[in-house]
């Protein structure tokens, strides 16, 4: 399916409803839309803000590569990824993934795949700033995220 995915790396917030509408308005071939919003948590009150650093240019390029992979794997009618950078406070949005498809399973799997790949392959890094003024340091990559990624390799080999 020839679709034109939307990929944006930006400082400002996004509008979930507008992004879903962009993939569904005026269409009658979309049966399922899955969205994922990633938000900043305050870690039990300790976190004042996250600072998101990214590699401009490569961030967009890498996300586009991930999106292209998803398009070859699932019958999607639309895909949108928006990843923010800069200072982000608890309760605020960090990332949005929207996957639209005729079928629910494809929409769920494409969105989940995109999130797993974003976590481990997109060039973004999070630094924590604590409420007490101390720099919390850089968030470490989680083993669980690498594991989450592997399940898509296994599926691809079946």
């Amino acid at each position, binding site marked *: 399916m020839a679709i034109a995915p939307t990929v944006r790396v930006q400082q400002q917030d996004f509008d979930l409803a507008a992004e879903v509408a962009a993939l569904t308005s005026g269409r009658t071939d979309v049966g399922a839309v899955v969205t994922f919003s*990633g938000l900043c948590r305050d870690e039990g009150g300790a976190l004042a803000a996250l600072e*998101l*650093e*990214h*590699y401009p*240019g*490569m961030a967009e*390029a*890498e996300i586009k590569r991930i999106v292209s992979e998803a398009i070859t794997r699932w019958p999607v009618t639309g895909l949108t990824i928006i*990843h923010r950078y800069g200072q982000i406070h608890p309760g605020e949005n*960090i*990332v949005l993934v929207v996957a639209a498809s005729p079928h629910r399973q494809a929409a769920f799997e494409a969105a989940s795949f995109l*999130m797993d790949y*974003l*976590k*481990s*392959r*997109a*060039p*973004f*890094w*999070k*630094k924590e700033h604590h409420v007490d003024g101390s720099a919390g340091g*850089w*968030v*470490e*990559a989680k083993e669980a*995220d690498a594991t989450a990624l592997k399940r898509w390799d296994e599926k691809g080999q079946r």
Partner: protein
Amino acid sequence: MTKLLYFAWVRERIGKREEEIDLPAEVVTVSDLLEWLRDKGDGYAEALQQPQVIRVAINEEHVDHREAIAGAREIALFPPMTGG
């Protein structure tokens, strides 16, 4: 001249975002580059003390440490990513 970019704690430890470097001929692979950079000063040594954890992109694409760097315009060094 090759442009080197540093991100996150690699950037903080080396103390700069980017630099243009004239790489010697014996620096053939990404591994060679990491080893060669470690000798450039304390910041570099601190940033690259565990070269196996450093992720590398050449011309904005992820590469293996065994990759040849010939033809690279831009090489970026950074810690494992934590986006999403």
